[in-house]
């Protein structure tokens, strides 16, 4: 074979020379390089791995972007898992998180990181005052009865906090609706005479009204009435029932 080849080569050269005009004899072409050994494979190339924005406040999202070449698997940690070589993913970390992208091929592993920083959110603005309850509802739910000792109309010290709470709630009511009227009702237990109790109930209503007015509740929105012992809450002849009935109660309107 060598012989044939050796013959062939000059033949081509002569042809070429003849074609070239037969000027000179062309230099022989360089021989092809000898076959090389297979080279060692390269690791994947992570072109980029970013988080935008890199700083968020709690509850906001950031977007991870990446591009990887020459990888057989690409994974991102923190629960994201396997991904395609090029991609993007929104994340909503609740705390500062460093994401690690791991690209793997036969040549090895390449990693890159991207950090999303979560800043402490500023305190929320105070919620606006919500008048979701009506004056009548506030009256029924927040303005509580005041109780008295037998044959007494003065407010005993243990009842003072209730009077103060009632004053606050009433002021709120009348600020919401300056035309709203509240009746301060005086009541007595069954034991005294009905005649004396009519006047005693009146003293109790008056006593509470005076206390409320001194705490800033507008007097013109308060009316007083005594029911004596005509409107008891309960009728048992017990200390417990009598104490319940010795009261001032607040009702809407006149």
């Amino acid at each position, binding site marked *: 074979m060598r012989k044939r080849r050796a013959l062939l080569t000059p033949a081509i050269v002569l042809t070429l020379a003849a074609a070239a005009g037969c000027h000179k004899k062309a230099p022989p072409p360089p021989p092809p390089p000898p076959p090389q050994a297979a080279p060692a494979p390269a690791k994947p190339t992570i072109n980029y791995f970013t988080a935008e924005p890199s700083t968020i406040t709690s509850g906001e999202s950031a977007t991870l972007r990446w591009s990887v070449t020459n990888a057989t698997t690409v994974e991102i940690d923190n629960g994201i898992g396997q991904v395609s070589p090029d991609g993007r993913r929104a994340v909503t970390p609740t705390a500062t998180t460093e994401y690690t992208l791991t690209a793997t091929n036969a040549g090895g592993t390449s990693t890159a990181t991207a950090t999303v920083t979560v800043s402490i959110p500023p305190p929320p603005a105070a919620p606006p005052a919500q008048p979701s309850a009506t004056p009548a509802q506030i009256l029924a739910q927040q303005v509580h009865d005041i109780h008295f000792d*037998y*044959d007494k109309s003065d407010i005993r010290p243990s009842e003072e906090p209730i009077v103060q709470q009632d004053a606050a709630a009433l002021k709120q009511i009348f600020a919401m609706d300056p035309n709203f009227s509240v009746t301060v009702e005086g009541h007595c237990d*069954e*034991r*005294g*005479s*009905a*005649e*004396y109790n*009519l*006047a*005693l109930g*009146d*003293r109790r*209503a*008056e006593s509470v009204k005076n206390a409320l007015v001194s705490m800033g509740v507008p007097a013109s929105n308060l009316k*007083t*009435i*005594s*029911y004596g012992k*005509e409107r008891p809450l309960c*009728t048992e*002849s017990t200390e417990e029932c009598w104490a319940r009935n010795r009261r001032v109660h607040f009702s809407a309107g*006149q």
Partner: protein
Amino acid sequence: MRFFVTCFLTLIGFGWLAGKQQPQITGVITHPGKPLIAVTEFRASGGAASLMSAFNDTVMNDLQSSPLVNFVPRTLYPLQVPQTASQLIPGVAVPGTPINGLRLTDWSLPPVSAGYLGFGYGAEDRGMLVIFGWFYSTDPHIPTLQQAQVFGRVYTASLDQAGAIDAGHRYAADILAVFGGKSLVGTRIVFVSNRSGAKEIWVMNWDGTNQKQLTHYGSISTFPSASPDGHIVAFTTYAPGYPAIRMISIDTGRQLPFYNQRASMNAFVTFTPDSKHVIYSSTAGGGPAQLYMANIDGSNFHRITDSGAIEVEAKINPKTGTDLVDTSGRSGLPQIYHMNLEGTDVRRLSAGTGEAVNPSWSPDGDHIAFAWTKGFDPGNYNIFVMDVVSGELTQLTSNEGRNENPSWAPDGLHIVYSSKRGRDSQIWVMNADGSGKHPLTQIGYNEKPVWVNAEK
């Protein structure tokens, strides 16, 4: 029994044959020193016959329950009785003549020994019951029969049981009037009842009959009082939206004008004896209820008290018209105070212990009836009577419920009051000494009775 009594009396009466008309000993004595009255059983014929037992029982009961007289039992009476004045035989019988019942001496002497004799008969006349009733003094010193007659009257009534009873009341009242008794005939009692579904003012006759609703407000109406002339009922009602005073005519129920001061409470009206002015309680001054005086229509009001304590239930003295009693908190728990109509000369009448409330004057101004817990638990009320001058106390009720709101009858001999037993409250009447208690109402919750004079 009758034989024994007759023998006994004959022995006793032997020493009295001189003709004393009011011996000290007789068959029954309930009120020493009081006149002895005999009243026969009236009879009738025709349609009136069956009604006479109701008439006779009523007369006897009314006379027996009165402390003004002593009623001689009919078992002592002669078998024969006069039916008309013309049947009376004048003069004294010849000694030894048997008693025939037609001489006044047959009644003045033992065994009857009565100082007075009532007799008569009934009849039906044009569809009505007609009772002829006479009343004589048996005093033998009176020279003629004509002069011995105290009265002779005709009583007309409906021809039924109610009419017979009514005639009986009237005849007995006329007899008692001879001895100073003020009759209860025509008097009424106003009270509070809830039987219509709300507390309203009601009225009934003094004996509990004919109970009628006077107000129809459907609210709370209570604390009634009445004018001395018997025409007006005053009370307190929540009908206008707060406790206020209203006045109505007792006959028509028509509302009369009354000016209420601007106040959280106006209540507890009392009238002057001439029914022209009133005193009542009001919070118009801004503090505890105080007493105010005004004209009967509420005009020209002015304040009487300024105690700084609760003043309620003023009651003007019906005899003098110059002083009053009320319930006051000026010494702590309610007590009864006395003062003049200017609010001066104040003194406490009640003892100062427990709670004393609901004062009521006797018609003669000598006594106050009231309700008192007397050192018992609060709410344990009984009726007491106090002599206003001496302070002497008598307890009229005990161990029979919660007893309140006493009110004297115009005759000064009876007291109406309310008694609450458990959850039930009724109107009761008793004699002014506490005897003879009986209820007048049964239906509903009844309270706060006030005795009203017959209309003048």
